[in-house]
């Protein structure tokens, strides 16, 4: 029964509600969140635009199958907390996914409204509901099943590990999440900047999981501090989920890569996000002093966008994004590219670094680049960039950040020799059940697939959780793949 009484024709006449944003000129000097969140009026108005499709394409487009139509309907009825509960049935981190999901290629990309009009602002609405819930704090914890007596160890506290923990603990399993760093959240803490995902929001979501009974242990490097075998044989865990992400930085193997001032995106962002180097000397960890300097970031994904906008906020005079294709091919979220441009980021497209140049002190002074043109489409379907001979030029910069994706960190795999990996070092897991070759051990997220998105990692975490549940219920490892709930 719809509570939205507007006739469909009227619904399409409502314009998509704009996200209130911090002024670009202001925000490029601070780390406060760019998007300010819809107001109650804005959210309710936006919700009224939903056509309430009988077969909602948006839900099919969501990797975790959030019941979008149902929660949007609850918003249009003014029941924001009900909407929050509805989302939480499928998504334990809505305040996070509402902010960082690539909605334009998922829920919103599938929205029927989007064929003729602007798609429904699903991400904005999800965020609104999650923020409303957090600020009003009136939703109880989800129901927790009676204890099963089974214990699950989850390695890694990023989106895959947290979403799996949320499901498993609700089903009555005792869950311990192990984290190598000193804060819980994985890439949500060290990788995504404050202006896009405030750390307080991650902490709140983690707290909720803690209240549900998930135990967190920081400062534990599985593979070094303990091994998977020890967790299972000595500590008595009945199942283990490896959700360590893809944390190995990729470098380009170019001359000059060791110069001071050349960073991996992981290092640059970790120093700022996790270690608060932007607040040096109030915090002890330093980072390159960008003030008044020209800097460059190499790459076209969300991480590259995060790094270049972070450098701008650290006071860079110019911040240039070097990308070897054109803006149309950039894998970053459209909103991040738009925000970056508003903040004065220069896009240097169709260019690729060939060397880093430095001074006698070993400090970076310039990036030598070559112009590119687009050739035939490659395996990814994007037209592959081809260097233009003789087009080399130098871009003077004092800092460069390499943001070209990450590889598989080998720590867990190398200490677990009976768990199979693939050629590139990622863990081999059955795509249906996410079982590894080692009985009782599952793997999910970027450590299986390679670098992906928060929401895909969360989806994998839920698949693994369902599979772990089936294994713990039956005690059988060799039966047919259980179908995820």
């Amino acid at each position, binding site marked *: 029964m719809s509570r939205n009484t507007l006739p469909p024709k009227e619904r399409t006449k409502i314009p998509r509600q704009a996200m209130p944003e911090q002024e670009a000129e202001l925000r490029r000097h601070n780390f406060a969140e760019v998007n300010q969140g819809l107001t109650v009026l804005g959210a309710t108005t936006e919700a009224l635009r939903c056509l309430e499709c009988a077969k909602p394409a948006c839900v099919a487009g969501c990797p975790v199958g959030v019941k979008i139509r149902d929660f949007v309907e609850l918003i249009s009825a003014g029941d924001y907390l009900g909407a929050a509960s509805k989302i939480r049935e499928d998504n334990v981190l809505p305040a996070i996914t509402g902010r960082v999901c690539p909605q334009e290629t998922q829920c919103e990309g599938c929205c029927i409204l989007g064929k003729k009009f602007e798609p429904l602002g699903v991400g904005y609405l999800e965020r609104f509901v999650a923020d409303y819930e957090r600020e009003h704090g009136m939703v109880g914890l989800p129901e927790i099943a009676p204890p099963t007596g089974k214990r699950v160890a989850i390695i890694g506290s990023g989106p895959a590990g947290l979403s799996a923990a949320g499901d498993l603990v609700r089903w009555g399993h005792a869950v311990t999440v192990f984290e190598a760093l000193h804060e819980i959240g994985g890439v949500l803490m*060290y990788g995504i900047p404050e202006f896009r995902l405030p750390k307080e929001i991650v902490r709140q979501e983690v707290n909720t999981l803690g209240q549900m009974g998930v135990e967190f242990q920081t*400062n534990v490097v599985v593979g070094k501090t303990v091994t998977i075998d020890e967790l299972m044989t000595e500590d008595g865990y009945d199942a283990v989920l490896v959700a360590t992400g893809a*944390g190995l930085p990729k470098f380009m193997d170019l001359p000059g890569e*060791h110069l001071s001032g050349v960073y991996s995106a992981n290092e640059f962002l*970790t120093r700022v996000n996790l270690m608060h180097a932007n607040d040096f000397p109030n915090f*002890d*960890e330093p980072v390159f*002093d960008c003030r008044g300097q020209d800097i460059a970031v190499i790459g076209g994904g969300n991480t590259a966008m995060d790094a270049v906008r972070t450098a701008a906020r650290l006071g860079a005079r110019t911040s240039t994004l070097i990308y070897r294709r054109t803006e149309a091919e950039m894998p970053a979220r459209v909103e991040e590219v738009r925000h970056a441009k508003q903040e004065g980021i220069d896009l240097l497209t169709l260019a690729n670094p060939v060397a880093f140049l430095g001074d006698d002190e070993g400090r970076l002074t310039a990036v030598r680049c070559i112009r590119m043109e687009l050739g035939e489409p490659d395996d990814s379907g994007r037209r592959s960039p081809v260097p233009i001979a003789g087009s080399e030029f130098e871009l003077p910069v004092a800092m460069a950040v390499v943001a070209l994706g990450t590889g598989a960190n080998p720590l867990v795999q190398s200490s677990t020799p009976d768990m199979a990996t693939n050629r590139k070092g990622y863990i081999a897991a059955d795509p249906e059940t996410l079982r590894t070759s080692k009985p009782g051990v599952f793997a999910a997220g970027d450590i299986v697939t390679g670098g992906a998105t928060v929401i895909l990692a969360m989806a994998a975490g839920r698949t693994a959780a369902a599979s772990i549940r089936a294994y713990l219920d039956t005690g059988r490892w060799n039966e047919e793949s259980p179908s995820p709930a």
Partner: protein
Amino acid sequence: MFPILEAEFLAPEIKRFVIEAPRVARKRKAGQFVIVRLHERGERIPLTIADGDADRGTITLIVQGVGKTTRLMNLLEAGDSVLDLVGPLGEPSDVRTYGTVVVIGGGVGTAIAWPTARAMKEAGNRVVAIVGARTKELVLLEPELQAIADELEIVTDDGSYGRKGVVVDPLCERIMRGSRIDLVLAIGPVRMMQAVAEMTRPSGIRTIVSLNSLMVDGTGMCGGCRVATKDGTRFACVDGPEFDAHIVDFDVLARRNRTYSACEAQSLKAFQANPKAALDAVRHSCRLDQSHRDESMAEVASR
């Protein structure tokens, strides 16, 4: 939170800590390190594990006060705690029976070399220890090395103890004399390790150094500790900290280690102006942590 059980100065500005860290104590092997963060606003710093006692659940760290964080740590006493401690990290030393192993420690490098020297002795090697320091009172672990080394030679810059000179001198003599040397382990300042590497290179004596690179996470994630070697880029945190000295580009290492020298100087100056405030920050962080724990324990108990 990791309680400090013992803390004593071994030499001016060099302090030995025994810290409760049962999991690390159980797993650590010679050559490995931990990353320590003292307080909520602190930086993560790598420190080599000098010793450990698995039964007691403790590890020993020997810390030379150089920059802000190490000087701050050296103000801590038994009864204090460090907020975070993670490890053991890095690859253990490759301890095997080589024959004659010359272990060279420069300054606080002696403390880093000590566990490997002992392991080498236990593995049946003849161990020749050469220990260098600026002056007599900075000579570290002499009785400990005396107990395990077949020969111990002490060198001081000012000649106040042992022979006057640098650690490369006795090594040079041994090489010139044609004494048998199957492996050299050299740990100390970058330039000292570089000098040792150059000394052993012509005769092709296998030489191992332990590199103290800039590091953040210590698990291979940030890539900040990258070391230029003849075989390509390596990460000190996961591929090291020990490397074949003959493939390391020490000039690049020395320059990379200076990346934050201006920031480090600024931090140190601020710290020296008010060390007590910094110490209070550590003690406050750790008390907070304790009270959080007490609360959650009480919560669990009341369920």
